[in-house]
């Protein structure tokens, strides 16, 4: 059975592995875009009274840096692994709804492009400059985002872009919940699922419960801006604090949406490279679930400075400190997994251990925010920027790179270079600590975030220069990674099915896996099938024809209706809304009625 090739086969693909790769490359490109934005920010701040960019551009840069990294880079990079790895880990031939999966990808791609077009379309809005990019910060606080204070289309691009991306996240969330619950191979009980699959399930539940809240919050903002309602508008009796509540009710589960997949990847890598089962599997799984539950009860710790009163502050302070417990439990379990193992410090493990170390630092500074009096000193200073980067860069990005080095041979059939990988790791580790550790001091010394420059009198000039040097070191490490990818395409060592001697089912398939994944759907009897029962899951050549679903155009057609709808709103062209609705309807109906068999 040969796999179809060519552009059409990629555009119409419903294969989870191809969609995973599409997710990966798209998200990686956005990761680089977000990185370039970060470098511009750091260049501007390298010295006091910098002149690299003006204040308006700076506002756009930090807003788009945060939004891009969170919604267009880190989340979809996690989803790339959900797509590629989860069906393999549970012994399935695809996800439950392959076309819905393609739809998620296309909506994500088009939503990302829509939001980033704002960099170039200023002239269309007579803005007097090229860029009308979002400029209200990644959490877009009302009432700054109201039409009265943000007249141009900048905030509209942000809110409509996020609205489109939300559709993608919701569709993906439903798909993975059902895939994991319903498509497990025989014998793959819930408590035999690999931890990465478990964390995918937990994350998917968070996606389908948290995104409706931000959808409504953004819809309110849209109504305020386009139709003159008063949801966040004081003069009409509305309350801007409502936005903060709704945003953070979504926003804090979102933080766990970002970190849990990385925790899952690390929980796969540590056992493989220490030749030991994960210490306390059950406890690790239940802590993940508990983190997700508790993540719903901590949102107001983002709002201590609003003045919600001592009762609210005390309650949210306590819940925030409590959530450190299941997180700490995981960290101790990871360390105990390494303890007494036959450790092999290959690149994936380096990144996994780097994840643990950096995430501990980020976790500790997080606990300091949990105390309202301390938080009042830290709010809106660089201390918070330091914290978020230790958890999202030191945590999520390190975890995702660990996953890339670990699963690269499975995705491509070739091993990334270890020498380049280790160089990448050390440069990135040193770079991130140079970039983000000084920010703790910069913040405590009083430098506010989101201000485009600072005075030499503040006494933070040297620390800022160090931070900028660190940022460029991270950029160099990324160039090494890209070089590693390019080199591996032709010169990389052929991986074989199971180069790391992993224990979970994805390693039973060939590298890269055949289009049908498993010639025979394996029956599993334990958590670590390739260690405990390699014969029973070993794959032989397929005995007959294995059906794989055909491609479909309609997910792409349906997906393109959404950016059209957003364009009609932002341009005020009503006729375009009818075109968009027609495209959406045709796409959905054709999708519904086309002959399609999984």
């Amino acid at each position, binding site marked *: 059975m040969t796999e179809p090739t060519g552009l059409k086969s990629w555009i119409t693909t419903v294969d989870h592995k191809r969609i995973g790769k599409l997710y990966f490359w798209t998200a990686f490109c956005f990761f680089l875009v977000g990185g370039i934005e970060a470098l511009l920010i750091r260049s501007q701040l390298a010295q006091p009274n910098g002149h690299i960019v003006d204040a308006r551009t700076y506002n756009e840069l930090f807003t788009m840096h945060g939004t891009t990294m969170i919604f267009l880079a880190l989340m979809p990079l996690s989803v790339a692994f959900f797509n590629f790895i989860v069906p393999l880990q549970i012994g399935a031939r695809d996800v439950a709804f392959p076309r*819905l999966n393609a739809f998620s990808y296309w909506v994500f791609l088009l939503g990302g492009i829509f939001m980033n077009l704002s960099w170039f379309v200023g002239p269309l809005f007579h803005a007097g400059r090229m860029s009308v990019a979002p400029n209200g910060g990644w959490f877009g606080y009302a009432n700054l985002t109201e039409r009265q204070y943000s007249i141009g289309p900048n905030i509209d691009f942000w809110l409509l872009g996020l609205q489109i991306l939300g559709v993608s996240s919701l569709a993906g969330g439903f798909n993975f*919940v*059902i895939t994991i619950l319903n*498509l497990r191979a025989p014998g793959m009980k819930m408590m035999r699922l690999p931890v990465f699959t478990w964390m995918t399930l937990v994350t998917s539940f968070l996606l389908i419960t948290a995104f409706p*809240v931000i959808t409504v919050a953004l819809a309110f903002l849209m109504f305020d801006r386009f*139709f003159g309602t008063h949801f966040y508008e004081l003069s009409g*009796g*509305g309350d801007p604090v409502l936005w903060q509540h709704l945003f953070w009710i979504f926003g804090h589960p979102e933080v766990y949406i970002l970190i849990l997949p990385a925790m899952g990847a690390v929980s796969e890598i540590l056992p493989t490279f220490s030749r030991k089962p994960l210490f306390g599997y059950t406890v690790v799984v239940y802590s993940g679930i508990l983190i997700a539950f508790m993540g719903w009860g901590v949102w107001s710790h983002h709002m201590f400075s609003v003045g919600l009163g001592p009762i609210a502050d005390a309650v949210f302070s306590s819940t925030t400190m409590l959530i450190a417990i299941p997180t700490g439990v995981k960290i101790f379990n990871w360390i105990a997994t390494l303890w007494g193992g036959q450790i092999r410090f290959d690149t994936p493990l380096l990144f996994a251990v780097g994840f643990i170390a950096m995430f501990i630092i980020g976790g500790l500074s997080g606990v300091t925010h949990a105390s309202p009096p301390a938080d009042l000193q830290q709010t809106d200073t660089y201390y918070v920027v330091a914290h978020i980067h230790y958890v999202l860069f030191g945590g999520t990005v390190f975890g995702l790179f660990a996953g890339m080095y670990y699963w690269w041979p499975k995705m491509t059939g070739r091993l990334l270079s270890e020498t380049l990988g280790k160089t990448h790791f050390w440069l990135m580790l040193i770079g991130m600590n140079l970039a983000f550790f000084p920010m703790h001091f910069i913040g405590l010394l009083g430098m506010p975030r989101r201000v485009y420059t600072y005075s030499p009198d503040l006494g933070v000039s040297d620390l800022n220069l160090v931070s900028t040097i660190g940022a460029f070191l991270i950029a160099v490490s990324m160039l090494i990674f890209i070089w590693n990818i390019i080199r591996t395409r032709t010169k990389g060592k052929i991986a074989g099915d199971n180069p790391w001697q992993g224990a979970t089912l994805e390693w039973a398939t060939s590298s890269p896996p055949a289009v049908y994944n498993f010639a025979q759907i394996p029956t599993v009897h334990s958590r670590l099938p390739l260690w405990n029962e390699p014969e029973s899951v070993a794959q032989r050549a397929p005995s007959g024809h294995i059906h794989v679903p055909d491609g479909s155009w309609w997910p792409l057609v349906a997906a393109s209706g959404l950016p059209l709808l957003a364009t009609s709103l932002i341009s005020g062209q009503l006729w375009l809304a009818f075109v968009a609705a027609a495209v959406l309807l045709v796409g959905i109906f054709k999708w519904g009625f086309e*002959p399609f068999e999984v």
Partner: protein
Amino acid sequence: MSHAAATHAAEGHHTSMGLDSRKMAFWAFIGSECLLFATLISTYLIYSHRSLQGPYPQDILNIPFTSFSTFDLLMSSLWMVLALAAVQRNDMKWAKVWLMGTVIGGLIFLLGQVWEFSHFVEHGLTLQRNLFGTTFFVLTGTHGAHVFVGVLWLFTLWVRAMQGKLTSKNAMTVEITGLYWHFVDVIWIIIFTVVYLIQPVYHG
């Protein structure tokens, strides 16, 4: 969500939970929708005493009229149950009747909402007028949009039935449509209770 002919993924396939994947996905979707409406209803309640100027709910809401709409929507849920039962026993003649009945029930509700909205606008209650208008129209409008999608969906099933392409093999499709329809109905009962029956009293 594909709701078409017998072409979908998990139909007839073995699944780990022993349940149809589409049906499970739909329950997950309903769970997600609960949070959507919870956010809308909470906002309505939080803002219920905060309008700076009239018209206030007690000036304008017409409980007898909306009670009729509510009764109509409840009845359409009954027609939906009967439609599913007819499809399951492959009685396509009655399936067509009850499906059309459900569509008409939905349409009557929507017409009622259109009349209600335009009546309110005539009496000075608009989206922009006060917080009551802002929250009322967005909440009930979102619900109305859901009813509209349901009517389109049911109408599609009715057309398929008229074409002879809907049989008892598609019972799961009709069952999922029913899940959606009943969910939209339940949400309306909550909205009717919260918005119409338990009105905040303004002393403007």
